[in-house]
């Protein structure tokens, strides 16, 4: 029996590899790299849903050729992400790489993708550098750079709310520094002061000690960023320790996005954030998007789904422009750079560094019946990652990751 199995394994494997080979030279393959486990798994799922839904709406075919999504799990590890990218490009023959949630994975891929010259459409990772100092012509982003939404928030807080002194709290890594750095910078440039900065570790189970160590009389507002479970905990603990009602809480849109909003409970009411998407946006594209998403997946879409849906659109426009001849990566990239369309979030196009120029909404969390929504209370249009300075002036400034401890005079 054992001998028989030994004899048969080789021919069986050979047969399998032959069958697994190029499955139809006509199919366009798109590689999707997302986390399948751990705290970001839920975001990975939203990305998959957004992309799948977009292509399903096109009948899973573009320019007369069938389109296939090949999903790979990077487990949030940079080396795994890189290995999967190599596998997708070299073995599976994908024409586009997309997805990419974790910034460390994004950076690990950057050099390899830049050399491969295949378009990469990042749908979530916000690490600023990828569309600034470390940009490459074939690397695109459809979410937003980490600091992009925060720039308008800092300005808005000073001008429209009259705050003058701010305490900044963020997890102590690049995302935290970039998202809060954006509003710290514009707030200060308007004339405001940052009186304290606190950077707890990512995933801290208890924000109690940080919150209770603050001198509330020293500031007019607390500006933060937290995501996922951290955001739920922080907002709830902000209310539990009595800070709610004594000092307003504002932050980057991740703090109250649709993924965490319902779990935050009454504590979140009144919190102001800035984000490029919320499901309550009243335009035709978004209304259709939300209805279709709910029908397909039986839950409301988050911003991550929208970013990925838009990513699908960008990729499709690239494929259309080369009439399906995706081997011509350079022409696809050139066409993708020029997209300009109405996305669920509003008018969408890229800047010269392949980062989105879109509206940014100022949102306030409200209770509606027994659930919570983010209501749009203000809007800035055509905001790029360099607002309000322009690319050259902005890139000359120090990076937010270096500014983290330098906001206080």
């Amino acid at each position, binding site marked *: 029996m054992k001998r028989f199995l030994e004899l048969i394994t080789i021919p069986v494997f050979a047969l399998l590899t032959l069958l697994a080979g190029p499955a139809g030279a006509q199919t366009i393959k798109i590689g999707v790299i997302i986390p399948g*486990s*751990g*705290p*970001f*798994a*839920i*975001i*990975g*799922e939203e990305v998959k849903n957004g992309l799948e839904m977009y292509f399903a709406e096109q009948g899973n075919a573009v320019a007369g050729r069938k389109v296939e999504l090949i999903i790979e799990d990077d487990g949030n590890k940079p080396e795994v992400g890189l290995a999967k990218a190599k596998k997708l490009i070299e073995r599976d023959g994908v024409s586009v790489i997309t997805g990419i949630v974790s910034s460390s994975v994004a950076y690990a891929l950057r050099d390899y993708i830049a050399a491969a010259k295949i378009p990469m459409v990042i749908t979530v990772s916000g690490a600023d550098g990828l569309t600034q100092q470390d940009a490459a012509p074939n690397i695109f982003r459809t979410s937003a750079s980490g600091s992009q939404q925060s720039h308008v928030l800092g300005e808005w807080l000073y001008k429209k709310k009259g705050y003058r002194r701010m305490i900044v709290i963020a997890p*102590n890594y690049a995302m935290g520094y970039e998202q809060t750095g954006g509003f710290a910078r514009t707030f200060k440039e308007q004339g405001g002061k940052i009186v304290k900065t*606190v*950077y*707890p*570790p990512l*995933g*801290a*189970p*208890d924000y*109690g*000690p*940080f919150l*209770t*160590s603050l001198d509330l009389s020293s500031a007019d507002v607390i500006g933060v960023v937290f995501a*996922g*479970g951290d955001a*739920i*905990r922080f907002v*709830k*603990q902000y209310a*539990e*320790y*009595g800070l709610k009602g004594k000092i307003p809480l504002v932050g980057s849109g991740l703090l109250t996005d649709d*993924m*965490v909003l319902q*779990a935050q*409970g009454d504590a979140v009411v009144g919190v102001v954030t800035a984000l490029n998407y919320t499901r309550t946006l009243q335009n035709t594209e978004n209304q259709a998007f939300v209805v279709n998403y709910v029908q397909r997946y039986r839950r409301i879409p988050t911003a991550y789904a929208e970013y990925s849906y838009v990513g699908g659109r960008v990729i499709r426009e690239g494929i259309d422009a080369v009439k399906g001849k995706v081997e011509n990566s350079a022409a696809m990239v050139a066409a993708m750079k020029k997209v300009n369309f109405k996305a669920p979030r509003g008018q969408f196009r890229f800047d010269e560094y392949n980062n989105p120029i879109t509206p940014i909404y100022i949102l306030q969390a409200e209770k509606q019946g027994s659930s919570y929504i983010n209501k749009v209370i203000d809007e800035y249009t055509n905001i790029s990652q360099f607002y309000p300075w322009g690319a050259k002036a902005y890139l000359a400034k120090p990076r937010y990751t270096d500014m983290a401890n330098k906001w206080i005079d």
Partner: protein
Amino acid sequence: MTFWLIQVLNGVSFGMLLFLLAAGLSLIFGLMRIINLAHGSFYLLGAYIAITVAAHFGGFWAAMVIAPLVVAAFSVPLKLLLLDRVQHNELGQVLMTFGFLLMISDASLWIWGGAPLSLDKPALLAGSLALPGAVFPIYRVAVMVIGAIAALLLWYFVERTRLGAIVRAGVDDHEMVQGIGINLPRVMWLVFALGAMLAGLAGVLASPILGVYPGADFAVLMLAFAVVVIGGLGSLKGAFLASLFVGLVDNFGKALFPEFAMFTIFVPMAAVLAVRPTGLFGKA
């Protein structure tokens, strides 16, 4: 003054959660010499099951009673059917519990989804105490009380009951206890289930404060091990004191030196290991 008071209260309430986690881990190691990496999974399951129970069967209190019992019941077949197969192979046991950790982690992701969840506090405990100049959540006070009651019950069980005496003897000298004819294996699965129940209870109590999400099992496992290493494997007294110590040090560390928050738990652990490798009260 109130600053210090709040930090102490916070530290003690966090310490009580740590105690519930660490006590089980410490006993399981002390008696069975199993490094139970699946302990984090029991915490995770306790929290997730509590949320499901609360959503369908009426609230926090039902969840607090039912979820730990379900976790304990779940742990018994793991011990009897799987762990006992690698009984005298310590490395095998560690690997197997690691396997449980990974499988339960993935199964939870499949069952409850990846979005972070949290349990609603019971209405009775939902408010905050107004202290002079500050506010402290009542729920955390309740956690301290429940933790203290659990500690007392455990102490009574271990120090004053026959079964507890057998456990203590088994921790001290395994072979001797079996030599005098006591059926230790039967006691062992009971202790395993007890440890799992405590971890599950920690999960339930923690979920309104810390929430539960994929990866919470790994996160608390690190904390539980830090406490058990400092307090000493196999010692309940060590687990209790080390939990309070770690809770307070971690809390004050975060409040006073936020940038070094990662160090505040692991520096004491490293220091204790350097000076007393078996932990402060260890019997390993």
